[in-house]
């Protein structure tokens, strides 16, 4: 089923946090690497949430959305947010080479975010290989995939072999089923996909290498992971490395982002406590009159600036 048939994914809170972090990172990258001339390539679906951000935050005009579903293509064309978005129908593997052929597009950096809702599979691995070997210099590449454990084998014992079959030699020989449980798989996949991208870039001998920039596992009932990096031109490599090495860089996290769905009233109440002098606790939430899991409290505190507020409008 196509994602637009299952959920309006602009209202998944952890997804919003992840998107907020990515665009903040992209904005900072565009300060050091001159990305206003970039082309944005992605899967806009019928919502174009990331395309709107690319236009508003990064000042990008030329954008291409790839849509594989026939009805989805019609709806995307109808819904596209700006005149300068072009929607192409087909699978990424078939359409990416065509996009590179568009006049001038191979000489401008790409910000390409392949935001799949499916799990990693052979086709996605090939898309990742194509992107890191063909994206023009100074491009930023991002990939989002499902990290639902069952998509990698119904039994835990099968998962390391499945991941090895997909990502090959970069998978350590001692990858265990404990690394592939519901809780651990998002972190494991994120690390291995980064290693895979780095190795592919090294093999392709890109002069500026691969600068690891994004590692964001997140969970809104389904576990997802976003990984990505910068493919700088040789001359821009030092600046790109310095950017992500800076302590203020937020693009990579070590724990799964799990923003709780909350009511406007809860959010307003908690926000009035922040920024807090000491860490917020569950006890404090209870004092305020409601309750949350400890990890939800931590997540809220860490990511509240990126949290969206949702309300139903009765028109």
């Amino acid at each position, binding site marked *: 089923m196509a994602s637009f048939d299952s959920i309006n994914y602009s209202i998944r809170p952890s997804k919003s946090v992840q998107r907020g972090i990515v665009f903040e990172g992209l904005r900072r990258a565009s300060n050091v690497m001159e990305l206003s001339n970039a082309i944005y390539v992605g899967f806009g679906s019928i919502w174009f949430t990331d395309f709107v951000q690319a236009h508003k935050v990064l000042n990008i005009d030329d954008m291409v959305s790839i849509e594989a579903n026939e009805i989805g293509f019609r709806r995307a064309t109808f819904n596209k947010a700006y005149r300068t978005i072009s929607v192409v129908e087909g699978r990424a593997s078939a359409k990416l080479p065509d996009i590179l052929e568009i006049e001038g597009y191979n000489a401008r950096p790409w910000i390409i975010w392949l935001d799949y809702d499916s799990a990693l599979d052979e086709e996605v691995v090939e898309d990742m290989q194509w992107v890191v070997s063909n994206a023009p210099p100074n491009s930023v590449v991002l990939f989002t995939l499902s990290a639902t454990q069952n998509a990698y*084998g*119904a039994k835990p014992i099968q998962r390391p072999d499945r991941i090895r079959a997909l990502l090959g*030699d970069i998978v350590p020989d001692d990858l265990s089923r404990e690394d592939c449980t519901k809780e651990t798989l998002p972190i494991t996949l994120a690390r291995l996909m980064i290693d895979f991208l780095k190795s592919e870039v090294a093999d392709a001998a890109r002069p500026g290498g691969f600068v690891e920039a994004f590692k964001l596992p997140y969970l809104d009932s389904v576990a997802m992971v976003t990984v990505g990096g910068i493919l700088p031109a040789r001359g821009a490599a030092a600046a790109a490395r310095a950017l992500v090495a800076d302590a203020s860089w937020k693009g990579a996290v070590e724990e799964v982002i799990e923003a709780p769905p909350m009511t406007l009233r809860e959010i307003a109440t908690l926000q009035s406590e922040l920024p807090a002098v000491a860490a917020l606790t569950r006890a404090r939430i209870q004092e305020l009159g409601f309750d949350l899991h400890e990890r939800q409290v931590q997540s809220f505190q860490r990511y509240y600036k990126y949290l969206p507020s949702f309300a139903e409008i009765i028109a």
Partner: protein
Amino acid sequence: MIPGDKSKADANPTKAFFVRMITRDITLEDCIFDLIDNSIDGAWELAGGHPLSLDDKTDLSPFRISIHIKEDHFEISDNCGGITLDDAADYAFTFGRKETAETENFSIGVYGIGMKRAVFKLGSEIEIRSTYKDGDALASFRVPINVENWLASGDENWDFDIEEANNLEQPGVHISVAHLTDAAKRSFESPRFIRNLRRTIARDYALHLHRGLVIEVQGKPVSGWIIELRQGGEFSPMRAQFVEELEGEQVFVEILAGMTAPPPNDSEPSEDFDEGQNNSGWYVICNGRIVLAADKTSLTGWGTEGWPQWHPQYTGFMGIIIFSSRRADLLPLTTTKRSVDETSAIYRQFRSKMRETTKEWISYTNTRKQIRDEATQREEVAKAVPIFQIALRQEVELPRIASKPKVPEANILYTVPKPRLRSLASAFGNINMAYKDVGLRSFEYAFEDLVGDE
């Protein structure tokens, strides 16, 4: 009349040519192994220096070789005795082995090129430090090499300077290389390169690691590959030992061969077939080091006179031939130590023995096709045994199978999109199920539904 000053054509090599040439035809991985080999030769010398046969019980556990790789820096250190100042001044930095150099006992280094070639391949800012025992005390020196300055200093003087240095913690060698070459930098950025480096170390130094040697990469010791052959039921591997005389020196030879894994029931190559994971084929070991692994080419005889080309049907066969000698130059080593010298007399002499045992296996995989299920059962009885525990036996023993009439068979071949295959495999309970098994299960499923009892 030729003027006196023109009576000789200058044939001296330039340094730049030399550096380019010696680093050209060797991989980065093999360069790192050359450095490991030097450390191991030191350890082996300290441990007594004798043939590294499978029965050997030498304890290498006091010795440790550590490799640290960063995106812009390479470092290898060991506690294997170090290079003495005399050796450094006269031999260790000479390009090529001098005739006057002593033969190291049962070493793996032959050509006197390994260390120089390795560091030149890695980068241009090099420091080699050594601490060694001088009588009862420790003494040390360092040899800094800045390749650009050395090249620029002209082709007359090829020497490197030896300087004073502080002692390392234990007698040993410490080599560090900065200003990496582009090729080294690219490889060191790749997690895949580092993981594969570990895997190859685990395999090629399996015999040393089995004797307790510690090789660390990025601070984590590599566990050696346990080489096993199957034994039991009607299966017994071959293990035969020989001693040959060559130029007045003894060369010890040992051959092991047999089944390492049951052969496949379907020998059609599929996309699932992963050559890298496949351990089948011939292995050649020289003075303890695997120089050729899982070979399926004419180097070990496949496809040469009286010997068929390798075919996936032969998967499951493993043959190992081990050569040891006090003089490494008598062994069939190439300079990269990543292949065998096919012209070597001692190697050619044993090719016929390798052929005989290979042919036994080929014939077994041909006959077993007639009784696949029964053969699979017989193969399951044979259990994996580490090669060190295999008893001596002149020939490999495999089941004798008499041919019998069989039901004619049909092959079914069809193509489906991969995601659909994986979905069905998942529904059958195993997302990793081989394509062939998904096909068979689907056939059985349909057969039971539509045909029922035969």
